[in-house]
């Protein structure tokens, strides 16, 4: 009985210790952005492996998501004779929700898992300790450029996803199903608000960028330095990212809808 209490207390303390450690490390990493600005080559390199390598995946997925939205939206709207609103349906669902969320999920799977595996392996092969031996701070050298590159990449990728998706919806709706081209664009422009919809979508994607990249970097940095530890950390990155992104999305949407 007392054993159980002791264990419970231990778990609670452990939880807070972990939370505190994570927040402190996050602050350290963000503070390391400042010296990082003097060495933009590090960021460019990470932008390449995080952003550029995810680009094709994001563009192709966005195109297909947009085409599906066009098909589904058309079939529902045509019953009400409102197929002219297809542009609004496609644009709003992409810009507000699907763009940031699906991009974040794909980003966690494509870039996040790679980040965790990379940093985890660095730890397992004692490269991180090596850096410390050479008086190079691994937080500044390894974590900060990756986190910053992730934060820059996510909104750009989400914007590409939405733009390509709207074009995909246009191809299916206008070219295939015969929605009026003028109505597709003009209704979209009349109903999509810059401040309400687009800016909020960008805010969401920046938040998701911070969260997914941070989870990936943190899991890699704190993983058990064995092959099983790295594989477990990689799995956790994808699972946690997906859960946190979907949960945060609800919170952010609730806040943004006033």
């Amino acid at each position, binding site marked *: 009985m007392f054993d159980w209490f002791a264990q419970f207390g231990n778990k609670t303390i452990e939880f807070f210790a972990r939370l505190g450690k994570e927040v402190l490390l996050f602050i350290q990493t963000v503070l390391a952005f400042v010296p990082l600005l003097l060495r933009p080559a590090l960021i460019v390199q990470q932008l390449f492996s995080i952003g550029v390598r995810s680009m094709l995946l994001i563009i192709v997925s966005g195109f297909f998501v947009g085409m599906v939205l066009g098909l589904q939206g058309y079939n529902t709207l045509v019953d009400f004779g409102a197929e002219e609103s297809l542009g609004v349906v496609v644009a709003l669902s992409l810009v507000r929700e699907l763009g940031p969320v699906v991009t974040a999920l794909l980003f966690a799977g494509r870039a996040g898992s790679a980040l965790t595996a990379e940093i985890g392996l660095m730890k397992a092969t004692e490269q991180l300790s090596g850096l410390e031996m050479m008086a190079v701070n691994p937080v500044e050298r390894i974590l900060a450029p990756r986190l910053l590159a992730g934060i820059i990449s996510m909104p750009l990728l989400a914007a590409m996803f939405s733009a390509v998706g709207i074009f995909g919806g246009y191809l299916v709706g206008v070219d295939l199903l015969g929605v009026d081209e003028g109505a597709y664009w003009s209704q979209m422009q009349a109903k999509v608000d810059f401040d309400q919809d687009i800016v909020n*979508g960008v805010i969401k994607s920046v938040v998701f960028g911070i969260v997914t990249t941070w989870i990936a970097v943190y899991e890699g940095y704190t993983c058990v330095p064995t092959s099983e530890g790295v594989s477990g950390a990689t799995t956790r990155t994808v699972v946690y990212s997906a859960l946190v992104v979907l949960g945060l999305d609800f919170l952010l949407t609730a806040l943004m809808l006033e």
Partner: protein
Amino acid sequence: MSNSRILEISVGIFVAVGVAALLVLAVNVSNVSGFSAGKQYTVTANFDNVSGLKARSAVAIAGVTVGRVVSITVDPMTFEAVVEMTIDSSFNEVPVDSSVGIYTAGLLGEKYVGIEPGGAPDFLEEGGVIRLTQSSIVLEKLISQFLFSQSDNDE
């Protein structure tokens, strides 16, 4: 070409494409280039009923959008709805005796404010008030009026 050069070029393309996508969303998809850009002037009008009208609804002359509704409030003294709207400065020759009404675009469409130009020699200016107003048609009232007039005829 060296490796780092290719790397830099591809990152440059990535950032450029991302910014271009954002621009497409801003300019082509949303209405940021609409009437928010140019110079505008603000006029107000009091209505008995504005049901269905919202902030950002269109203000139109002869069916052409010339401005937007900014805010809708209630006058605490008269209990009338005060609709504040901005009109594009290029339409600065709207006579002061113009009348405004709240109409519906299509059967189920959005409500908008329609301006019927009058004939006075003076024009509306910043802060001007439009006196002649016609309220929004409330469908329930219309139907009940119709029904009651029918039953009166039967008697």
